[in-house]
């Protein structure tokens, strides 16, 4: 038979050696740990103490057992009397004491509807739901995408991935609602035509799963696990028109501002980057701002619809704070401790408020008044952490997807009918821009 040896061509770099990975120097535990810090680390395999000892001796070259151990004496005063370790208070928090003051309107505490979302992936870093301007709610359940027509109640299965091990990692509707962008675990960015229920394009440019997507007219931006963000011009064959390298870990939050001027990205590296829509003089994209204050992954990223340049961000488990920024000045306008992992933030145009979705231990949605940051109300019901939030085109309903495999629709921003009429009058006066379809 034939010998199985292949000849490998040496890389083009002059003098470069073939890269031989060395398993013992790979930091497998750390890699797995870093990738999953917002998710439950149920798969952690701790090292044994004996192994660690041997490792220590080999590494250090000296026998650490022979070392002298010194303890720093003269300890400072402990935390003051009555200080209870905040972690316990944080993670076992009961309902907020004292009633929130009566807000001006009635917000139902129960969801309007509860939909089944079986097999929805319980992965903090993905963005699995989006609601179109044509009133279709798209939901990714593992390797399939379903469309729920909110008007008729009809459910369609749009797609199912070919390989059973692949899954859908992000969804985003184009503004007009006729095309749906789908990011996958095998690094693809697919474009689907809803009317024909056909796949128009399959754009491959990433090398790892695409967990976040955001549209800016005909530009689709995608964020991947490598930390890279790609801009795709969906009208042309050579779709990959730009690469933004500003994160060293998964990009889980990605949102273009409403005026298309800036792109905000949040990553598992705890950074928030604000990108301009045009390249700098060098031809490269560089962030105009980088915010480092969050101590956890930033997936919740949302632009204020009525105040340009104001951005809200929320941090993961080790951070739990919501921060408001002015992206022009770089100033942090306000901060509030939400006491729980923040997965998503949405602004309401109907009321000057925003809503946030949370995880352990309440799994609640919180509505906050802007700019006072006072809590308007909390919506409870989910029995496991909230993963994503999305809003209906009329702005009255918020849908939340959670790890309890349900989608709940909360009618929390319903407009007062009189105010609604006034708003509609004002909107119709604006000129409408006709968009060309995508060839």
């Amino acid at each position, binding site marked *: 038979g034939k010998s199985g040896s292949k000849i490998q061509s040496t890389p083009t770099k002059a003098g470069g050696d073939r890269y031989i990975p060395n398993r013992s120097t790979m930091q497998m535990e750390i890699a797995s740990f870093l990738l999953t810090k917002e998710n439950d680390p149920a798969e952690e395999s*701790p090292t044994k103490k004996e192994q660690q000892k041997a490792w220590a001796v080999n*590494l250090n070259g000296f026998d650490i057992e022979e*070392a002298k151990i010194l*303890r720093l004496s003269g300890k400072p005063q402990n935390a003051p009397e009555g200080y209870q*370790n905040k972690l316990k208070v944080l993670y076992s928090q009961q309902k907020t004491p004292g009633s929130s003051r009566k807000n001006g309107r009635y917000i139902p505490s129960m969801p309007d509807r509860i939909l089944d979302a079986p097999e929805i992936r319980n992965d903090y870093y993905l963005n699995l739901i989006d609601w179109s301007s044509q009133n279709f709610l798209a939901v990714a359940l593992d390797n399939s995408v379903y469309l729920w027509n909110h008007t008729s109640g009809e459910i369609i299965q749009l797609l199912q991935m070919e390989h059973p091990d692949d899954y859908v990692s992000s969804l985003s509707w184009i503004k007009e609602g006729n095309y749906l962008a789908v990011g996958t675990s095998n690094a693809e960015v697919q474009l689907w035509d809803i009317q024909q229920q056909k796949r128009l394009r399959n754009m491959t440019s990433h090398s790892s799963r695409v967990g976040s997507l955001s549209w800016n007219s005909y530009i689709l931006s995608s964020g991947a696990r490598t930390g890279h963000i790609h801009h795709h011009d969906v009208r042309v064959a050579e779709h990959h028109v730009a690469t933004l390298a500003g994160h060293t870990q998964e990009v889980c939050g990605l949102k273009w501002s409403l005026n298309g001027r800036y792109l905000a990205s949040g990553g598992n590296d705890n950074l928030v980057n604000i990108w301009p829509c045009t390249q700098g003089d060098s031809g490269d994209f560089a962030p105009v701002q980088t915010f*480092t204050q969050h101590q956890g992954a930033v997936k919740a990223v949302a632009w204020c619809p009525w105040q340009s340049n104001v951005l809200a961000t929320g941090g993961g*488990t080790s951070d739990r704070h919501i921060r408001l920024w002015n992206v022009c000045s770089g100033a942090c306008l306000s901060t509030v401790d939400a006491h729980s992992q923040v997965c998503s933030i949405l602004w309401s145009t109907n009321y000057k408020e925003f809503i946030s979705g949370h995880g352990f231990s309440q799994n609640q949605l919180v509505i906050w008044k802007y700019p006072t940051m006072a809590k308007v109300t909390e919506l409870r019901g989910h029995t496991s952490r909230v993963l994503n939030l999305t809003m209906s085109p009329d702005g009255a309903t918020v849908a939340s997807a959670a790890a309890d495999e349900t989608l709940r629709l909360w009618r929390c921003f319903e407009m007062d009918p009189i105010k609604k009429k006034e708003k509609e009058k004002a909107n119709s006066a604006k000129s409408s821009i006709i968009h060309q379809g995508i060839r």
Partner: protein
Amino acid sequence: IPLLRSSLSLARVAAYGINSILYQRGIYPPETFTRVQKYGLTLLVTTDPELKNYLNNVVEQMKGGMGCIVQRLVVVISSIENNEVLERWQFDIECDKTAKNESAPREKSQKAIQDEIRSVIRQITATVTFLPLLETACAFDLLIYTDKDLAVPENWEESGPQFIANSEEVRLRSFTTTIHKVNSAVAYKKDSFP
């Protein structure tokens, strides 16, 4: 002198690391910490003057002398009530004694070192997601492992290793400066979780 410079930055990283642990594990009230920008990160450091002073002793120890003296730095967190050790953070410092050797990778850029330090600090922050809650009020202890022939300096006393009896351990990321290589791990008391 590259060895001295590396020891200085190592000492500073140690201080920030310890501060992060004290903040994230809730050993001291969060209100007593303030934010500083360093290594492209927002770090939390204590404003408590006594605590600051206390931590300085560690920094001094690591700075002083030849910088190869401290082999391991340990932060021990134990319950005030019964002195039981609940958590143990261990930083192993490998020092390239042949620092004069030209083959040492001295071209390691500041940026590369900063990136690694950033990773370690971020890892400490992220451990909150899996470390068991510290239910009782806790105190911390700082231990250093050093050469057995070294004279015990002022402010320090000999001690045992203060291992945790029944522990789970997680190895964290390592980072290297031009001279030092630091490996970190955290061990915590195995608890009976529902």
